[in-house]
């Protein structure tokens, strides 16, 4: 109940602010946003027409499968941005998420190779992932360090621990769960693709169809208002970091299944994770991160790499286009929030 009030209030204050500034700016924002979506659509349409085999079911399932790990991580990042506010410098961000996944994967693979079963090993990976998340929460909420710096420090802690554990080597792993994730399928859709579908449904339900999700948006959007309405802001923010750690652990199991091993270099994924979470905001009317928007942008990033390969365009372009899109979206977002920037 109180959450609804807060949300309504938040929405209302946005409205007044926007109308207060200028309707022209709002219109311009709308145009740029639709422009960005049109650009996405145009790229997809081009692939559909010109990339051989792009629309085949087999290829599309491949892309969903290839997007599963990025997707789960991007949900963690999105949760942190929702809870901490989407201000790029001071808002919520979890730079440690990819390194955390590397650490969890190392723990999972190492325990499996030592002969512990799936149950214990998965449990340990989840415990480690959430512990790293809790460390982030402690640094951000408890010590009041800027999330950008706090999670950067934790990134190094996690990466260091992974190196210590694996000595920078590849740790091979096999188990019934991994075997199922690699070769299992249901209704013609592979287990890894199902993992993304189910996880997506879960986070979308939690963040967009429960009062809890609504309160989290209130905490991120207007912490003072949320506090005034009696919400425990630190608790909600801490939750997002721990959830992000949980996502890292889930992604680690998926990554070990896909690579049949834990390998060094997971940190490389960070840029794509950030890209997915940031790009996702263009799919929301008010430029806020949403789980659905993140899913769309994760699939877009996956389809981009896939389409380029099918068109036989050099893979070097993918990074460039991805970077350009991030720049575009961040520019649009800052432009749209111009009025809020002074806050």
């Amino acid at each position, binding site marked *: 109940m109180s959450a609804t009030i807060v949300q309504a209030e938040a929405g209302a204050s946005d409205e007044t602010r926007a109308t207060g500034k200028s309707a022209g700016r709002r219109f311009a924002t709308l145009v740029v946003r639709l422009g960005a979506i049109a650009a996405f659509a145009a790229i997809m349409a081009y692939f559909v027409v010109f990339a051989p085999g792009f629309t085949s079911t087999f290829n599309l399932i491949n892309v969903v499968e*290839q997007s599963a790990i990025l997707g789960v991580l991007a949900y963690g990042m999105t949760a942190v941005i929702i809870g901490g506010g989407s201000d790029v410098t001071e808002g919520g961000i979890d730079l440690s998420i990819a390194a955390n996944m590397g650490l969890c994967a190392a723990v999972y693979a190492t325990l499996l190779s030592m002969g512990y079963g799936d149950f214990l090993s998965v449990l340990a990976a989840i415990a480690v992932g959430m512990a790293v998340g809790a460390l982030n929460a402690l640094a951000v909420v408890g010590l009041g360090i800027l999330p950008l710096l706090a999670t950067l420090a934790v990134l190094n802690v996690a990466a260091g621990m992974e190196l210590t554990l694996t000595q*920078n080597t*590849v740790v091979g792993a096999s188990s019934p769960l991994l075997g199922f994730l690699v070769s299992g399928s249901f209704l013609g859709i592979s287990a890894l693709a199902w993992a993304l579908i189910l996880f997506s449904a879960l986070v979308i339900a939690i963040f967009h169809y429960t009062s809890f999700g609504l309160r989290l948006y209130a905490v991120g959007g207007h912490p003072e208002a949320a506090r005034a309405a009696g919400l425990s802001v630190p608790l909600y923010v801490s939750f997002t970091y721990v959830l992000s750690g949980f996502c890292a652990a889930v992604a680690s199991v998926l*990554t070990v299944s896909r690579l*049949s*091993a834990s390998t060094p*270099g997971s940190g490389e994924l960070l840029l794509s994770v950030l890209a997915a979470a940031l790009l996702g905001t263009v799919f929301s009317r008010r430029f806020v991160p949403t789980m659905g928007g993140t899913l769309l942008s994760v699939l877009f990033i996956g389809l981009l790499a896939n389409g380029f*390969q099918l068109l036989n365009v050099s*893979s070097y372009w993918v990074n460039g286009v991805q970077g350009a899109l991030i720049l575009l979206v961040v520019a649009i977002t800052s432009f749209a929030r111009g009025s809020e920037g002074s806050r």
Partner: protein
Amino acid sequence: MTRSMKGLVKALALGLAAACSLAAISGASAEELSLKGKRVGVSAIGTDHYWDLMAFRGIQDRVKELGGEVIALDAGRKDQQQIAQLQTLIAQKPDAIIEQLGNLEVLNPWLQKIRDAGIPLFTVDTATPHAINNTTSNNYNIGAEIALQMVADMGGKGNVLVFNGFYSVPVCKIRYDQLKYVLSSFPDVKIVEPELRDVIPNTVQSAYSNVTDMLTKSPEKGSIGAVWACWDVPQIGATQAVEAASRNEVKTYGIDGSPEVIKMVMDPKSSAGAVAAQQPYEIGRTSVDNAAKFLAGQKVPPFTFVPAVLVNKENAAEKGKPFLDAAEKAGVK
């Protein structure tokens, strides 16, 4: 009846003649390989090292020369990306796939899937049971030669710093095992324990600081005689560290033949003792030839060795130059 019999015989004879001429054509193609109308997928884990880049280029250039279409995929040293690229590549159903290096443990299940999809698989410097042919240097030879050169330079005794961070990479395993085998005949040459660990990325910087630390730990001159690595990028850092510490009695040894290292070996004042120089560009091209032969129905051996050259202080001026010329021609420094 007889007429139809005659017809049958005639048809058979014609068929036989056609088969013979076909055989003749495929025999002729031994000299003139062609990939006209063929698509060849090329997947490399990364191209940030000289060796990798040259092999990757060699493959692409040769496919184009033979009239084929290349789908070239560089995973930027990201396992996830390489797997995604291979998965999409399988769906693209090329006529052949050439895979170059990477983590075998990660790759093997996917290489199996390539074969399951009926696509002929060839590898460059990657020994896997799933490949029809692996084109590489003779790493058994290289490993023994560089080890023997080192032992000779050390006068058969002394301590060696060994980088052993990539034992999981098959070629490094062979070279390291060959080093151990050679040293088993020279009990006075000892590997310093614990061994050092070479890393990617920041290979040079990390090797530099590792070797500097070890030299500081053993300050007496002569307490360390040599540094060995299974490739030559750590050798760069090691050589710089030895020179910075003015410990010129220590010599460094590596394998691959990056132009930078060949220049070091050519420089009489440098501490780089020797490098086994491979021909990555030729290796890449040869693997394409193998694929083309296979697609033309010819027999292809399970592995092909492209010769490597040991470049040491004595022969560097003469043996090193062709490698530098090749690098310059390719525009790589």
